[in-house]
């Protein structure tokens, strides 16, 4: 038997009777499982998830679910095919032993694997003071249960809602509050909403949008403490300028934390920004050596991206979960030269205050912005971000049909400012500084982040002050 035949035989045998374990039973985990079966994997497949629920979709939680239109349990993801898996739901993975190839579960069980996919995603950053975080009425929003509980309280209705942090989720929560005609105060440490993701120029437009919809927006301020009543229910938020806001619902929207703690001691390049992997989803160990049996996908993955100087890119984006999972799953049951890269042009959307905000590329990679189409006044426009004469990202407010034009320019590293449109010019078409905050300013971490060049880089970590 030739060597080539032996390798082919190995692949065939693995596909027929190998053991694959997927840790993470959300969007990425599900789509990976479907792809594995689609690719002809007939071995044993185990899917481990810490939530007791089958895979569900998260974007609706901060929108139609909070609004009360769609029940939280109506978010179950459609199935593209049967995956015939051993589902281990409601039990978290707590450890990984790469030497014996076993995943340790919270109930003490060990699950052996031949190949492992890490898709553990992120969780919401909790309000840092545990006593205050435990007050009734204090929420974060990431899971189905979070959304169901918060929706119930919004329906009461509360006298006022305080949202801490005006990133995308915080802004969407504030938008739902206004749609429900609830008084809402938004407190944001940065200069404006969405500054971390889209910069200060767009942030100013988002700020005006919020104010026009009746949001009491307080920027450049933090919440220093939450005050409860004798019954243990939150009643007031104290702000860093000494003022206070009475409220009986508080939503802490402080960004997310990557679920990597269970990988402690595994020797993988896991850290604040997630698990380092190559563009094919193969995990790196802490020495920057690529592994053969461990793969990563979704929010918890960070991989080098050709368009962004091969820096490791971490993306908490919906299509990153889907397409990253599909690429990783394909590579789990194939060998070189049949590996497939996952080189997604990042894309993002957020519906808030009746406006569809979409972006392509990595806005914070840019340092300048130029308005290219439409009217800022009518909040119906497109703008491009540039860095050193190249276009690196674009954002659109209710201008989604034009975004693929900018996407194509970004893919080709087109010029910045981009060729101007032939009509509907904004009054001012000069590039201006995009005004991204200094990375040390503790505003919401954007959903797409360039995290440096080293597989195990941790230096970019921002550690919030603890009380």
């Amino acid at each position, binding site marked *: 038997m030739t060597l080539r035949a032996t390798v082919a035989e190995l692949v065939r045998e693995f596909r027929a009777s190998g053991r694959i374990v997927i840790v993470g039973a959300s969007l990425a985990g599900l789509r990976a499982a479907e792809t594995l079966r689609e690719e002809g994997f007939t071995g044993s497949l185990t899917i481990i998830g810490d939530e007791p629920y089958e895979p569900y979709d998260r974007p609706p939680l901060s929108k139609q679910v909070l609004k009360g239109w*769609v029940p939280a349990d109506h978010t179950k993801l459609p199935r593209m095919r049967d995956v015939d898996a051993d589902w281990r739901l409601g039990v978290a993975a707590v450890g990984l032993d790469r030497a014996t190839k076993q995943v340790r579960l919270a109930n003490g069980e060990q699950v052996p694997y031949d190949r492992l996919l890490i898709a553990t995603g992120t969780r919401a950053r909790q309000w840092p003071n545990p006593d205050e975080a435990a007050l009734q009425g204090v929420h974060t929003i990431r899971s189905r249960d979070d959304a169901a509980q918060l929706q119930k309280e919004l329906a009461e209705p509360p006298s006022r809602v305080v949202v801490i942090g005006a990133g995308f989720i915080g802004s969407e929560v504030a938008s739902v509050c206004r749609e429900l005609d609830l008084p809402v105060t938004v407190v944001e440490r940065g200069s404006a909403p969405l500054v971390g993701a889209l910069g200060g120029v767009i942030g100013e437009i988002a700020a005006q949008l919020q104010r026009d919809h009746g949001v009491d927006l307080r920027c450049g301020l933090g919440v220093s403490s939450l005050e409860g009543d004798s019954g243990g229910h939150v009643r007031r938020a104290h702000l860093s300028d000494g003022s206070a806001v009475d409220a009986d619902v508080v939503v802490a929207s402080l960004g997310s934390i990557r679920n990597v703690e269970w990988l402690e001691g595994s020797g993988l390049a896991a850290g604040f920004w997630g698990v380092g992997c190559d563009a094919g989803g193969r995990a790196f160990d802490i020495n920057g050596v690529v592994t053969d049996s461990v793969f990563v996908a979704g929010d918890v993955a960070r991989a080098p991206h050709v368009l962004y100087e091969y820096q490791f890119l971490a993306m908490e984006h919906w299509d990153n979960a889907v397409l990253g999972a599909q690429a990783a799953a394909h590579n789990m049951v194939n060998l070189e030269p049949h590996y497939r890269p996952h080189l997604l042009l990042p894309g993002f959307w957020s519906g808030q205050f009746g406006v569809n905000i979409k972006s392509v590329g990595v806005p914070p990679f840019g340092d300048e912005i130029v308005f290219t189409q439409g009217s800022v006044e009518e909040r119906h426009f497109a703008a491009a971000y540039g860095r050193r004469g190249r276009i690196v990202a674009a954002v659109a407010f209710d201008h989604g*049909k034009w975004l693929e034009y900018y996407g194509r320019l970004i893919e080709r590293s087109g010029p910045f400012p981009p060729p101007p449109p032939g009509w509907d010019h904004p009054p001012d078409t000069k590039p201006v500084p995009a005004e991204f905050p200094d990375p040390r300013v503790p505003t919401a971490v954007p959903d797409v982040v360039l995290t440096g060049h080293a597989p195990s880089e941790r230096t970019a970590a921002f550690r919030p002050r603890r009380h």
Partner: protein
Amino acid sequence: MRIVVDLNRCQGYAQCVYLAHEVFRLNGQEALTYEPNPDDERRLQVERAAAACPVQAIALDRVDGTERGEAS
């Protein structure tokens, strides 16, 4: 039934809204929201909506929901 819309692909053509407004709604001019698990009786409407999407952003379940062993 279950559906999911790839809102990165969605460009706000609203064809789904005109064909199945109980399931798909616009928030403003372009921001689409929808009921991810509509009643089965809406299936024809939803299939029409999915077929009509100019960017094919609406995915419908191809197999029935939950598998053996999945809690819910």
